[in-house]
């Protein structure tokens, strides 16, 4: 605990609560002093403070002690009055304003850092706070209710030049100039007087003065008179002592020479005078007075008797009405005397006495309800407690009491409350209770006018800062409150200062409203002061205020733009937050060897293209390098950065987002680039290395930003100067909350290294923002130190610009966005070569060969769709170019086609929408340059289209074996028109492959009676399918071509003579091939399946134009349905031959019927077949049970061991259908029959051979019988040949139930 006397409050009290000496002087005295530039009081002031006087004093109880330090306060009599309120206010304001002027210098500097603030202690507080506080307290001096400002002594001064000096002395005290305190009777007018004669040595010798002195002595007494000679210095001959006065003279002008006429002798004389005055006159006088008063007080108030008496007496006065200031007390009243006793004791540092008298007094005042005096005494008590360093609690209680009492009495006590509060604060501060002190400051602030409140709040904020632990948030808040008050009282500089300090607290936190408020106001105030650049800087912080209301956003933006305008130049900002750039969406599209037809193509994932182009680029020797092989040198260099070509634009997609709800306009958006021509490349790399070696090591964040901005602006200026590349500029405006993607381009014109550094845009035509793409990564690198990621990202924006090479551009013409499934049409691929150099070796790959296939050059000139129609010339088929090639590989090469420079190239493509849905088509076109000297040997042209395919016809086929003929099948076709509005005309159905022959069920009948298949309509048609395979076909390999030849059935209304389409024609056949690949597993060895192609057309005279108004083109729909199983996988076919109806006379005998079973082996191996007949056992014999028929094939499957599930399912379905048919027809079967002859027959069958097995049944009664109760077991004989992989999926043995065969036996007449 510090000694209270050495604390700030202690010092202040020792300074402020000291005896007051009233000075009365004649004008001539003043005149003499003014020669030195000083008033009389000023001249004496430096000598009123005694730090080492050592005066012995005795307390009332005769305890001796010594005073070492002492101070007198000198005032002219005219000044001893309550200061004028307005003047005092003015004065205080001036103090504050002056402080603000002083601070102006660092207003434009950086705001204080938090660490610096924390390092501050109470000593480093700005001095003017103390001055302000002192001045504030001084406004209360010479109050009536306190005695410590009452003059203790009176110094009467007369100049030796005055006429009749003795009379003057008398006059001085008798005039009405005496302060009201004395005149009103608040003070005892009999005060200690001291007479002083001033002699100006410049006016001649002091002889006259000494004469006057002796006269004075005789008149006023020996000890009370003195002579003081001044101005004895000769001009400039002696050393200057003016510095003694400077601290006391506040309004000094430096030119004035203070104390120029005073020499050392004068000074020592003044010193002696003052010392004598205090030690020989004032202190003894006070001591004396204390004694007298104490005796009086003891006599009247102390002791039990007096207390009772006093209480009684006071009680009597109780009914007097409350005067606002309580009763009036004159100097002679005992209360005033006690007060004087207390204050004198305090001034002589006899705190015990002071305390006891104050205590005594406070009860009196309280009873008297003289609240102001009561509060004053309480205040005094608190101070004495403090100086005694006894009870902290008591001191605070007293202060609190005084404070609230002052407040209670209303406006008159307000300022007193403030003073009391300030003392209280100092008291708390001395005990380091800063938090409480801040609370008191806050209480003071609520009572004071805004300017004072502001100062108080600011002091409160510092208290929070100094408290332990520092309460920074409170600090910030109170600073803001203070700033607000400063602003209200028109002290903008102070407001700025406080807000700026508060910023250090709020920096980097996410309390958005706070930040906005502080930044906005600081900015606004700076703008008031005309410091626009700082204002704008602060305004910048709040632009992206999406959380604020629309009105506030508008206000912020408006103010910001206004300020920028006032700055008078375009303002350049680094990374303006309006609009926000979404870095993650940044996309660069550039074309090295990869070129794109459209942006859509460029947006496709690179891996997708790569997988598509895999074997296309494969053929190129240069690009493909094994990872094991050392990389070629040239490619290594290119690998670091991307490659682009002179004259070809690099596009950059940047996503801008407007965070505000108000529209903003953006203009002049363009990239900032740097292009080092080839000759300077090496140099640029060097500098780059340097930059990487020292990646902004010690630079702070802000400096870094400034650095970046400088770099960007300088680059931009360079940009506009040079013509080595061209930049695009974009202007757009954004609505509130909108997100816009902007494409910016840069086109290099010179070879070298191009770096995209950043982007620049203008907001509302006044603010230019620079945004660098790289620094993010640089920062990241500093933090994480991850080398790899940063390197790759920063390199991404660096391009090696190479010499211009040809580039193909083009598109697919007439490609619709929406088409119906099955729609087949011819498209044209158009390629343009703008350059002078021709390209060659073109190859193309298509991602969906099912949808698009390249045609042949002849297709270009023929008419569609007639080119697909069947030609009478059958030979034409054989020379189909696409068929003769291998259509399996999707890589298509344009033979020897080359595109000359400046020409356009066309190539037909066939499009067929295979399945409904959304399809993304990717086409990759590879080409090589004619002149191999260029750095790029080849390029790839990528085309991408999205296609929406709508449902059109749903096609399903059902095939069941014809019951009457071997190798003939019935085909049911179900067609549903699934389109929403289109009517379709069915044109033809073709079966594919030469071994199948499709024909109408009835040769001369129209199959499809309908002209049109309307939307939503369904149709079923029946056909006959015949297997016309010849055994000879197996001898050679089947050529693909012959497989495709098929048979057609015209579906249109009878008599239509339209030409049939050739399904084995080029396009359709190729599509069919891909369709087969898609729908089935393999196309070989599948003898048991059949493919159909249904061709339909849109009616030509459609009134409504369908999709995209392309009805003028004849449209062709082809639907392919492949791999329709012909009911059985078994290689064995058999057919029961025999009579269907037998007439027999059963009265004679039972009936024997001979039947033949024709068995055909359709496989390539020999088969052993066993046929077992089952004799009838009750219901089983009828085989009319649906379930039995359905289950049988399943069990046969299981018997076979393993089987292909999907195939099995097919079988089940078909046999299910068969079973259903039996069920219907076998209702009239009545009686059993018996198989005659052996129950099992075994036959060996050579490949592709047929045999006939005789059978016989015995029937005992007339009726209709189903002869299906036999099973066929078959087994492939492998003859020692091991199973090949393909065979494994095949069944090697099986069991099939018999086919139904109905025979009707009638009783012959």
């Amino acid at each position, binding site marked *: 605990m510090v000694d209270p006397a050495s604390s700030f409050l202690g010092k202040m009290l020792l300074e402020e609560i000291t005896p007051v000496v009233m000075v009365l002087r004649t004008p001539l005295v003043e005149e003499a002093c003014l020669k030195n530039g000083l008033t009389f009081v000023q001249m004496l002031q430096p000598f009123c403070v005694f730090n080492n006087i050592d005066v012995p004093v005795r307390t009332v109880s005769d305890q001796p002690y010594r005073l070492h330090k002492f101070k007198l306060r000198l005032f002219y009599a005219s000044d001893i009055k309550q200061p004028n309120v307005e003047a005092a206010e003015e004065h205080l304001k001036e103090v504050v304003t002056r402080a603000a002027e002083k601070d102006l210098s660092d207003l434009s500097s950086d705001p204080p850092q938090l660490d610096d603030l924390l390092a501050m202690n109470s000593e480093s507080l700005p001095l003017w706070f103390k001055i302000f506080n002192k001045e504030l307290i001084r406004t209360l001096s010479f109050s009536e209710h306190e005695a410590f400002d009452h003059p203790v002594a009176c110094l009467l001064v007369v100049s030796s030049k005055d006429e009749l000096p003795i009379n003057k002395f008398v006059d001085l005290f008798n005039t009405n100039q005496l302060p009201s305190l004395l005149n009103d009777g608040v003070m005892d007018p009999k005060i200690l007087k001291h007479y002083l004669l001033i002699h100006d040595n410049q006016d001649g010798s002091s002889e006259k003065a000494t004469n006057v002195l002796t006269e004075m002595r005789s008149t006023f007494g020996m000890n009370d008179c003195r002579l003081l000679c001044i101005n004895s210095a000769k001009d400039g001959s002696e050393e200057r002592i003016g510095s003694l006065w400077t601290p006391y003279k506040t309004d000094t002008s430096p030119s004035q020479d203070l104390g120029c006429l005073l020499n050392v002798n004068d000074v020592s004389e003044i010193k002696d005078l003052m010392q004598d005055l205090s030690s020989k006159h004032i202190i003894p006088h006070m001591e004396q007075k204390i004694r007298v008063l104490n005796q009086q007080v003891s006599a009247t108030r102390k002791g039990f008797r007096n207390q009772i008496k006093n209480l009684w007496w006071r009680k009597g006065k109780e009914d007097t009405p409350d005067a606002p200031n309580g009763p009036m007390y004159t100097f002679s009243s005992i209360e005033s005397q006690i007060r004087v006793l207390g204050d004198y004791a305090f001034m002589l540092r006899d705190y015990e006495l002071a305390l006891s008298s104050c205590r005594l007094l406070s009860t009196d005042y309280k009873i008297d309800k003289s609240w102001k005096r009561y509060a004053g005494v309480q205040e005094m008590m608190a101070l004495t407690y403090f100086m005694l360093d006894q009870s902290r609690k008591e001191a605070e209680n007293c202060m609190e009491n005084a404070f609230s009492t002052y407040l209670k009495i209303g406006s008159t006590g307000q300022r007193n409350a403030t003073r009391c509060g300030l003392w209280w604060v100092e008291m708390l501060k001395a005990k380091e209770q800063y938090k409480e002190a801040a609370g008191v400051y806050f209480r003071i602030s609520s009572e004071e006018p805004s300017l004072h409140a502001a100062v108080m709040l600011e002091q409160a904020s510092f208290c929070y800062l100094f408290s332990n632990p520092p309460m920074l*948030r*409170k600090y910030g*808040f109170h600073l803001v409150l203070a700033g607000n008050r400063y602003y209200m009282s028109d002290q903008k500089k102070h407001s700025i200062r406080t807000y700026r300090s508060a910023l250090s607290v709020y920096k980097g*936190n996410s*309390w958005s*409203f*706070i930040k906005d408020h502080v930044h906005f106001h600081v900015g606004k105030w700076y703008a008031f002061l005309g410091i626009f650049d700082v204002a704008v800087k602060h305004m910048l912080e709040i632009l992206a205020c999406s959380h604020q209301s629309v009105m506030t956003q508008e206000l912020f933006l408006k103010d910001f733009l206004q300020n920028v305008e006032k700055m008078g130049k375009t303002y350049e900002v680094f990374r303006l937050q309006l609009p926000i750039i979404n870095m993650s969406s940044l996309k660069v599209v550039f074309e090295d060897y990869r070129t794109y037809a459209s942006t859509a193509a460029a947006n496709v994932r690179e891996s997708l293209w790569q997988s598509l182009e895999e074997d296309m680029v494969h053929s190129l020797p240069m690009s493909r390098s094994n990872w094991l092989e050392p990389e070629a040198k040239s490619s290594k260099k290119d690998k670091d950065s991307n490659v682009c070509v002179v004259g070809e634009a690099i596009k950059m997609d940047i996503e801008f987002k407007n965070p505000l709800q108000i529209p903003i306009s953006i203009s002049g958006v363009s990239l900032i680039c740097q292009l080092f021509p080839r000759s300077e490349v090496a140099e640029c790399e060097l500098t780059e290395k340097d930059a990487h070696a020292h990646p902004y090591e010690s630079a702070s964040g802000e400096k870094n930003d400034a650095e970046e901005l400088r770099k960007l602006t300088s680059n931009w200026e360079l940009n506009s100067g040079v013509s080595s590349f061209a930049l695009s500029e974009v202007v757009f405006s954004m609505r509130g909350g909108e997100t816009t993607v902007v494409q910016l381009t840069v086109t290099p014109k010179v070879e070298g290294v191009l770096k995209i550094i950043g982007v620049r845009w203008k907001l509302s035509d006044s603010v230019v923002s620079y945004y660098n793409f790289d620094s993010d990564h640089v920062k990241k690198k500093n933090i994480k130190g991850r080398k790899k990621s940063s390197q790759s990202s920063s390199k991404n924006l660096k391009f090696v610009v190479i010499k211009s090479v040809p580039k193909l551009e083009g598109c697919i013409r007439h490609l619709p966005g929406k088409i119906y499934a099955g729609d087949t049409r011819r498209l044209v691929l158009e390629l343009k070569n703008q350059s002078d150099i021709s390209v060659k070796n073109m190859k193309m790959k298509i991602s969906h060969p099912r949808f698009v296939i390249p045609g042949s050059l002849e297709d270009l000139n023929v008419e569609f769709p007639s080119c697909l129609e069947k030609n009478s010339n059958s030979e034409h088929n054989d020379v189909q170019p696409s068929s003769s090639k291998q259509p399996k590989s999707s890589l298509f090469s344009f033979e020897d086609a080359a595109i000359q420079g400046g020409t356009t190239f066309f190539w037909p493509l066939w499009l067929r929408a295979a399945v409904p849905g959304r399809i993304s088509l990717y086409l990759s076109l590879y080409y090589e340059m004619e002149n191999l000297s260029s750095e790029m040997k080849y390029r790839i042209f990528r085309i991408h289209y999205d296609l929406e395919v709508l449902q059109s016809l749903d096609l399903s086929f059902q095939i069941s074996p014809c019951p009457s003929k071997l190798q003939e099948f019935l085909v049911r076709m179900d067609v549903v028109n699934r389109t929403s509005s289109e009517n379709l005309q069915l044109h033809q159905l073709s079966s594919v492959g030469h071994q199948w022959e499709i024909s109408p069920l009835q040769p001369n009948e129209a199959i499809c009676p309908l002209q049109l298949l309307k939307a939503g309509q369904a149709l079923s048609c029946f056909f006959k399918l015949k297997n016309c395979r010849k055994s000879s076909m197996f001898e050679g390999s089947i050529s693909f071509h012959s497989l495709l030849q098929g048979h057609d059935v015209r579906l249109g209304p009878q008599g239509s003579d339209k030409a049939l389409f050739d399904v084995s024609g080029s396009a359709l056949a190729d599509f069919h091939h891909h369709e087969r690949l898609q729908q089935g597993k393999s196309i070989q060895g599948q003898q048991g399946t059949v493919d159909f192609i249904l061709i339909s057309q849109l009616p030509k005279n459609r009134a409504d134009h369908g999709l995209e108004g392309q009805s003028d083109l004849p449209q062709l729909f082809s639907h392919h349905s492949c791999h329709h199983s012909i009911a059985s996988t078994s290689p064995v076919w058999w057919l029961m031959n025999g009579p269907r109806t037998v007439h027999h006379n059963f009265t004679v005998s039972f009936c024997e019927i001979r039947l033949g079973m024709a068995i055909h082996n359709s496989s390539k191996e020999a088969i052993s077949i066993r046929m077992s007949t089952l004799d009838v056992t009750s219901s089983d014999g009828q085989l009319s049970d649906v379930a039995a028929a359905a289950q049988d094939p399943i069990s046969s499957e299981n018997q076979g061991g393993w089987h292909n599930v999907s195939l099995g399912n097919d079988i089940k379905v078909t046999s299910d259908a068969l079973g259903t048919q039996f069920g219907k027809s076998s209702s009239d079967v009545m009686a059993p029959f018996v198989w005659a002859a052996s129950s099992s027959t075994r036959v060996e069958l050579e490949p592709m051979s047929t045999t006939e097995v005789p059978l016989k049944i015995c029937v005992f009664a007339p009726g209709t019988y189903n002869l299906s109760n036999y099973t066929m077991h078959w087994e492939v004989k492998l003859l020692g040949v091991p199973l090949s992989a393909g065979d494994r999926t095949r069944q090697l043995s099986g069991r099939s139930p018999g086919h139904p065969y109905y025979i009707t036996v009638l009783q012959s007449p």
Partner: protein
Amino acid sequence: MASTACFIIVSRNDNPIYEAEVGSAVKKEEAAHQHQFILHAALDIVQDIAWNTNAMFLKAVDRFNDLVVSVYVTAGHTRFMLLHDSRNDDGIKSFFQEVHELYIKILFNPLYLPGSRIMSSQFDTKVRALARKYL
């Protein structure tokens, strides 16, 4: 219901993660930052008090003019702060407790990163309903 009430959730690293003006008074433009200021400053007091007590509900910790700040500190040192002008300790306590439950549910969400802003609109409606019920 209090005429002025501002509820805010402050994460352990002193960032506001949820803010709601739940008073019945018409929302004033300048009130938003004033409330933030008061609540932000009150964090200092909370810091002092929170470690001296076992209770989660710290009652009224700070005041500014006629506005009182009541605080509830969860075990994870997330602070629920309510700025209000009515004195209704019991109601405020129940309000805090129920909001705590809601907050815990938010924390259960595996997609919610503790300390990030609470964007759930359901949370918001529930908190407002609680405010209507208790304050």
